[in-house]
């Protein structure tokens, strides 16, 4: 216990020095410095209170002789008093110093001095002109009555000045000087979490001065972003978008914050992931191409770093889905061409991929045709030697995986087509989706395997048993470790079969039990079922028996792990 106090005592000295330095002058530099240390100082005050509340006056004076000086200096530092909960901890510390049983005049003096300090920080705000304070008192009003109203009026007056300044263009008289806006933004740093300040924060974020460089101070952006991510403040979407456009580190931080939530140990369902993503306002912000590129870049990096981990893949797909929704709701006038969002691939490919079908209850010819088209375009981009290195195959794949539901649809189509429809395109698409780095030869081999499986599953002659099916799929994977992802593809094909065909549904449970031999595979199957149900919900497809079965299987598997 004593060691803690030693640390605290030296902290006391440190902070006393800092406060003295801040006291000396009130330039923009000292203000910036003060704002940097606000959170740490608050923590110090809190720790101080925890220590002081256990002690009596004499011990306090022994251990922390300079505490009185420190607290007094704090009382005159408006930045500290304006920040978060610092004023609360300060008041508590002061109260702890009160001598509850004063023995002599020295003790009484101390108490009276503390009284003075507390009065000072809670006292009526004396404006420049003494008459004003007297007037309010003359009317019989107390600060508690009119501070909130006064603050509101001051905030509104500043907001309208900013707006005027914005609208008045070259009329320099009505403009707020850039230095003033800058110092205003610095002053707002401790105050962004005060609800009454929201209009001003919003006003400053949407204020565009006439200077070429950014006028608001970076600490302001950071404070607002932090408050927004921790949900201590709520801002309208345009203000948040403006924040991220003007201050790149804030956007990065917001993305990292989102990633931390999405990729946790909990293996969230896609519905929950969608909630997190929509909540973050990033999809709406991404309608602005500059922001979209940054966000996309982060997804790209994450995929590369994790070697295409399924969680990241799923997150990318859900994000894209939310993004497309937001884009559609966006004002038509502000629409950018698709190629601004996806500059590394052919624009026509992006356009086709974005034509998301709304309803797959009847997998119509149109969908089939679209899949053919997508497959063809990708194939050309990836395998066509004439084009050479125009488009990096990874980029094509990266674009494709944004719209992962096409691959799922290809798998469904494979197992629902009863005619001799040309399925080569679908097979290629699936092989490419799961194994983008294969050479054309390897891909061709995979396609052969898939084709064989498809025929097996669709053959009506003999109903298959679970064991037979497993044996069949076992053929597809050798001991070769590079075939592990191919195994994933085969399992997904298999699962589609189980859900879509009557024959499959009867042996579904048995087959899955056989398949789910490891935890990893079980999680994979759970992910697949979750994704399929999510997609069906969104597409309002009517497949009651399949959906019911999928839901039941999902519940059973989740209970197992």
């Amino acid at each position, binding site marked *: 216990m004593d060691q803690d106090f030693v640390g605290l005592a030296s902290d006391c000295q440190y902070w006393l020095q800092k406060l003295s330095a801040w006291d000396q002058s009130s330039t923009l530099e000292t203000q910036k410095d003060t704002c940097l240390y606000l959170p740490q100082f608050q923590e110090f005050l809190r720790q101080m209170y925890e220590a002081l509340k256990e002690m009596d006056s004499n011990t306090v004076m022994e251990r922390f002789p300079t505490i009185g000086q420190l607290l007094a200096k704090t009382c005159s530092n408006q930045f500290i008093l*304006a920040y978060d909960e610092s004023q609360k901890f300060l008041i508590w510390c002061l109260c702890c110093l009160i001598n509850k049983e004063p023995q002599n005049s020295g003790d009484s003096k101390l108490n009276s001095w503390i009284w003075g300090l507390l009065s000072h920080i809670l006292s009526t705000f004396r404006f420049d002109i003494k008459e004003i304070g007297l*007037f309010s008192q003359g009317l019989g009003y107390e600060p508690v009555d009119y*501070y909130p109203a006064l603050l509101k009026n001051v905030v509104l007056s500043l907001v309208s000045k900013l707006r005027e300044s914005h609208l008045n263009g070259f009329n320099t008289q009505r403009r707020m000087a850039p230095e003033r806006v800058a110092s*205003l933004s610095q002053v707002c740093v401790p105050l962004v979490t005060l609800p009454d300040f929201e209009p001003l924060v919003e006003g400053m974020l949407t204020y565009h001065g006439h200077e070429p460089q950014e006028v608001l101070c970076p600490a302001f952006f950071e404070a607002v972003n932090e408050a927004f991510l921790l949900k201590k403040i709520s801002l309208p979407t345009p203000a948040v978008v403006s924040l991220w456009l003007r201050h790149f580190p804030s956007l990065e931080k917001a993305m990292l914050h989102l990633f931390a939530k999405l990729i946790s140990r909990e293996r969230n369902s896609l519905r929950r992931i969608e909630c997190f993503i929509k909540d973050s306002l990033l999809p709406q912000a991404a309608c602005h191409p500059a922001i979209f590129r940054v966000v996309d870049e982060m997804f790209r990096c994450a995929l590369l770093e994790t070697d295409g981990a399924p969680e990241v893949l799923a997150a990318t797909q859900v994000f894209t889905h939310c993004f497309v929704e937001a884009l559609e709701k966006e004002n038509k006038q502000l629409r950018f061409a698709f190629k601004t969002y996806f500059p590394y691939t052919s624009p026509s490919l992006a356009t086709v991929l974005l034509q998301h079908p709304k309803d797959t209850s009847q997998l119509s010819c149109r969908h089939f045709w679209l899949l053919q088209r997508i497959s063809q375009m990708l194939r050309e981009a990836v395998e066509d030697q004439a084009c050479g290195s125009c488009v990096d195959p990874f980029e094509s794949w990266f674009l494709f995986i944004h719209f992962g539901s096409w691959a799922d649809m290809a798998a469904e189509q494979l197992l629902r087509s009863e005619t001799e429809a040309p399925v080569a395109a679908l097979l290629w698409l699936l092989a490419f989706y799961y194994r983008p780095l294969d050479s054309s030869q390897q891909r061709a081999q995979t396609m052969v395997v898939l084709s064989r499986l498809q025929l097996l599953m669709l053959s009506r002659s003999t109903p298959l048993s679970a064991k037979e099916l497993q044996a069949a799929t076992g053929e597809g994977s050798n001991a070769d470790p590079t075939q592990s992802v191919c195994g994933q593809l085969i399992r997904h094909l298999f699962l589609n079969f189980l859900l879509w065909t009557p024959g499959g549904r009867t042996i579904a449970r048995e087959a899955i039990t056989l398949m789910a031999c490891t935890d990893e595979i079980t999680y994979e199957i759970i992910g697949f079922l979750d994704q399929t149900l999510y997609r069906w919900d969104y597409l309002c497809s009517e497949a009651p028996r399949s959906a019911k079965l999928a839901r039941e299987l999902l519940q059973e598997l989740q209970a197992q792990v």
Partner: protein
Amino acid sequence: MEPLLQQLERFSEVLSVSGTAHVSTWGPETVRRALDWARYLRHVARRFGGHARIRSAVERRLRSLWGPEGRGLTSFQALGRGDVQLFLSLLRNRALGEAAGRALLLQLLPGAGPRDADAEELQARLARLARYRAALLLLREAGSPGGERPALAEDPVLLTQAQLLLGRLREAREAEAGDPGGWLGRVWTRAPRDHFLQVAAVALLQPLEKELGASGPETPGEESQLLVRWLLEQSEVLAAFCRHLPAELLTSVAGRHPALSRAYLGLLTDWGARLHYDLQKGTWVGAESQDVPWEELLLKFRSLWHAPPPLQEEVLAALESSRARGGDFEVPGLSVWTDLLLALRRGER
């Protein structure tokens, strides 16, 4: 109901007393009990805020207690703030004894009062007040560097005080022994005069619905009408109002309130009539030192000249009829009205 209303009365008294020297007789127990009482009433206010009958009964009783000083409780909403008001009133009071003072300050520590699940504790609200104060000080620095004051009509401080004035006026109007006119008179005698005039002017410029503390659907604009009527009745105040406030502000106010614009023009006409032409100086001068000088008169008229239509026409009509009465001269130097019109028209080109 009646016990509650009686407690209300007694607490209101306690609150009034808390600002006086009488508190020197209070001990720590008294302070604690008074605060407990305040907390209880706050709890009542929160629970029955939505209950129309109770609320109106409370407000009726408070109106009957209404004192012109505005001490004590004045509205239902004030019940919710009673504890903070009491605390601050005692904090400011130098007459409070040492032991009682200690007991008061110790209320600031967390957990000092009984826990109320959904209400913010006293100490949290006081801490927030400290935060507001710091915010206002910071904004004052940033908003007006070098101490420049904003235009009067836009000054948030004046605006807030105008809202307070209108709020009090409404309470005075509704109270049983109200006498809003008398109350205004008292404020006028005690307050710094220029400041009072500025606040009154800003109050008259307020849009009709926005009055601080408006709790129900009152007839909007009644308070402004009250203020106008009072101003018109008090010739001394009206004269000071029209003389000492900036021309632009007066024009805006006159534009809003036709009765005032007539009175204003009347005064200007009287003042103009007191001027005579001094041949040596070549300008119009007043007979006595407190007469309104020519330049000031011109300034005021110029501002009115540029006012929006109804007022502008009124001004033109007044000037022309004055000129006609004065002999309808065209040549400068013979009638102050001619010269005014000439100067105003000249200024336009």
